[in-house]
């Protein structure tokens, strides 16, 4: 029997488009309307060969299939015994699962961190220094007459961002908008721009700071900044000052290049300064579909958005000290639970090496690169497809993730698996005391 699900939220990127129409036939997704290529690809092909269908425990070079109970028991034991365990991932699961994850990390006294640590963490640090002048995406759609993408290539990375929220969208007050792209190479998005400024790599900070001076009509001693004639930057400054409502979106081209959080700091400062003259907002182009939600839950439960260390019985936060990547590089952790992410594929090699050297538990629907090297693999459902939950869009708007199809028989959600581990950990601790 064919069934069409409307208003489905897409569990791919932080645009979290919630207008998907998904057709299910005999328990299988057969069609996806309104989605981008990533969305279609995930929803139609998620249930591939790499799917793990039984909990696994390492036996030498191989895995042995075990029951959830057995795998959970072993996982709880490894984590409880650890002196400085790491709970990493969280950007591709529901807020409901993240809540349990934090409780588990707190119960054990571990460090919990999200993929922000290697992505938009610097944005957060920038925000904590200077603030953030922002809005929801609809505000941009209704009001913006100037859109700037900086170190971000939405046509490729967030395919519907421009169509739904910016240049190609229609709003109450604005239909026509100017597009500016600042990047180190001519991206697909740059090709559509009214003004494209190609800057030298790793010079974003200088350009942003220069703009902060130019929007005040002050002059510089130099003729070029980051290889760009100051006259060109003056043109951009003028566009910024003269717009009615501007919006700057930045991506990892800004956050992960030289200067990192200071680049974000400069970008936010520029936008803040512009608000003395006109209306301007700024927003990070977050990547994974619920990395924003992870920030949210972490913050309301612990007071801090990521890199939270519970080892002393209360939340401590200091990226650089309590962030997963730095802990791994300093080789301090002695066990890890990885949920909804693939650090072996994304972390620097030395960090990944330390991660797999110690007891490693992976909760993932797939046999990811990390799962392949794990000691225990707990297979889970795909949230937003086989399990429901909540995710936050890049502009902090919460949206429901739906359950559209049944998971493979017996497969549990991240939330359920984590709850089982937490229960077992508490039992172990109770017995010990």
């Amino acid at each position: 029997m064919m069934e069409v699900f409307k208003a489905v939220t897409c569990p791919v990127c932080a645009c979290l488009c919630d207008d998907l129409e998904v057709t299910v036939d005999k328990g299988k997704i057969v069609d996806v309307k309104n989605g981008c290529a990533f969305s279609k690809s995930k929803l139609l092909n998620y249930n591939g060969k790499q799917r793990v269908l039984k909990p696994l425990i390492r036996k030498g070079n191989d895995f042995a299939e075990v029951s959830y109970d057995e795998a959970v028991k072993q996982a709880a034991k490894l984590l409880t015994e650890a002196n400085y365990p790491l709970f990493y991932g969280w950007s591709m699961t529901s807020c409901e699962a993240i809540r349990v994850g934090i409780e588990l990390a707190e119960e054990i006294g571990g460090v919990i961190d999200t993929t922000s640590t290697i992505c938009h963490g610097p944005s957060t640090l920038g925000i904590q220094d200077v603030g953030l002048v922002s809005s929801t995406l609809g505000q941009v759609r209704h009001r913006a007459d100037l859109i700037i993408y900086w170190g971000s290539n939405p046509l490729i990375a967030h395919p519907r961002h421009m169509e739904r929220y910016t240049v190609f969208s229609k709003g109450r007050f604005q239909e026509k908008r100017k597009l500016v792209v600042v990047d180190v190479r001519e991206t697909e998005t740059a090709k559509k721009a009214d003004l494209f400024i190609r800057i030298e790599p790793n010079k974003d900070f200088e350009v942003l700071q220069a703009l902060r001076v130019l929007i005040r009509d002050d002059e510089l001693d130099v003729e070029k900044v980051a290889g760009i004639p100051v006259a060109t930057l003056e043109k951009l400054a003028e566009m910024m000052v003269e717009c009615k409502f501007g919006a700057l979106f930045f991506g990892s081209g800004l956050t992960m290049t030289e200067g990192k959080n200071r680049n974000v700091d400069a970008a936010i400062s520029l936008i803040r300064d512009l608000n003395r003259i006109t209306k301007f907002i700024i927003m990070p182009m977050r990547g994974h579909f619920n990395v924003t939600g992870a920030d949210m839950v972490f913050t309301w439960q612990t007071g801090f958005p990521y890199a939270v260390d519970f080892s002393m019985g209360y939340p401590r936060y200091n990226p650089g000290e309590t962030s997963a990547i730095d802990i791994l590089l300093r080789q301090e952790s002695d066990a890890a639970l990885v949920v909804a992410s693939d650090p072996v594929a994304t972390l620097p090699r030395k960090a990944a090496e330390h991660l797999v050297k110690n007891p490693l538990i992976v909760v993932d629907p797939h046999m990811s690169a990390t799962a392949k090297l794990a000691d225990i693999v707990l297979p889970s459902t795909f949230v937003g497809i086989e399990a429901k939950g909540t995710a936050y869009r890049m502009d902090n708007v919460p949206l429901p993730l739906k359950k559209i199809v049944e998971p493979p028989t017996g497969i549990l959600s991240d939330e359920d698996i984590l709850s089982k581990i937490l229960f077992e950990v508490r039992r172990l601790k109770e017995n010990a005391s």
Partner: protein
Amino acid sequence: MELIIRNGFVFDPLNKVEGEKMDVFVKDGKIVEKVDECKAKVIDASGMMVLPGGVDLHCHIAGSEVNAGRLLRPEDHFKNFERKTRVTRSGSGHSVPSTFTTGYRYARMGYTTIMNPAMPPLEAKHTHDELNDTPMVDKGSYTLLTDWWFILECLENGKIEECVRYAAWILKATKGYAIKIVNPGGIEAWGFGRNVQSLDDPVPYFNVTPREIIRALCKVNNWLGLPHTIHLHTNNLGKPGNYITTLETMKCVEDLALKDKPVIHITHCQFSSFKGSNWRNLRSGAEEIARYVNNHSHVTLDMGQVIFTNTTTMTADAPFQFTLHQLTGNKWMNHDVETETSSGIVPFRYKRKNFVHAMQWSIGLELALLVDNPWKIFLTTDHPNAGPFTAYPRIISWLVSRKARESTFKKISLKAQRKSLLPSITRELTLYEITIMTRSGQAKVLGLKNKGHLGVGADADVAIYNLNPEAIDPSKDYKEVRKAFRNAVYTIKNGEIVVKNGEITKHVNGATLWVNLQTSEQKLFNEKLKEKFRDYWTVEYENYAVEENRLKISNPINVEAKI
């Protein structure tokens, strides 16, 4: 579980009990006439005060704005933390504590019901998720209705009935408890970086004025028969001379009064009681405001009392927050919500020696002391705007004791000392009046029939403080009063002991209170709304509403709306 609270001095103003020595009986979460004395657990409250659990009708404790404040301020948290215990979760934060910590700190002070006053509809799920994680207390949230385009458009076209339907829909969709109005018109103007200056300043691009918005939403509130009044943050808040705007705001709904029932609540009134034309000649407008309130029955206030500390300001009044950023140079967050509202956050330190801050401190207390009737003004700090809620015991001590006020007064700015009205005020509130201002009056104006009193049938939310009203003189022993209110000897929530000697003994969740409006068939209306949906918002109609099952414990207040 059955409880007998034996021999305490009971303060229950709604039932006109003023410090009588009597027993209170609790069974199945309710106050009852009697219990089985053999089975019941007995709490010996002799020499102590027994009060209904505290009620706070205005504290920013949950949702996107509060969380943004937390995210912005690791420096507010890193030295102010709570360790995990056998029963409690850990947390952190001085002025913007994390959710668990918020619940525990309220419970320790004997508070059992708190209201989060600013919920952006589009982000209502976020607010409720945080409230779910705020333990120990019952809680609710006010839905921000300014400056929602649907309302502005209805008013442009004079369609008040349609306005009522929209309001009913959004209150239900967001599981809100009341209608919140913030700087009406100013928020829409902020969409393009502007503000409105007076009640009659037209809203850019909309043919309406703040006055029309306030009046219309007041009518809507009456029409729907909501338990609380409209809850209003005035225009021009935080600006010298704004007491005129506040007086006009109260006047503009005079004719909408329903007999003796209030129809408007002016919140954190301290911030809206400034006289003078600039910061240098700032004066108190408390006398004028209090005189008006003393002569009218359609309005209630809460203090928004300033505390000299480092705190975090956060309101939906984003243009005001921008001004505050410009004034202080402190870091600034702004978050506009499409079609609906906005918000801003700026860290702020109130300094004793700063003339303006000291005046603000004085104005808050003047208001509380000059308004004769404690049922008309309530104790708040607009947490965390004027200071964190953990300062309530300190405020109580200022209210009950001239000596306490003088002790702080002599440390504030000398210029403020010269201009303050405080030295001329001799009034010292009684503990009975404090009970009204911190629970009974608040419960009453919120329309919470089972809260704020200890009559039979009331929710068994009780606070017991180690304070013997026969043995102490609050005026002299204000430090004792402060100490007692800081840590309840017992806090009882829904008939269970959850705090003992200021320590959390049990983690309970508490319910989410919301108004479940029963309206006539809305089908046609819903279709119309649905059609407009994609034009106005960037989310789908189906994904907008907060489903009831999202609330960990749902406590709907059923209201028959006449529509």
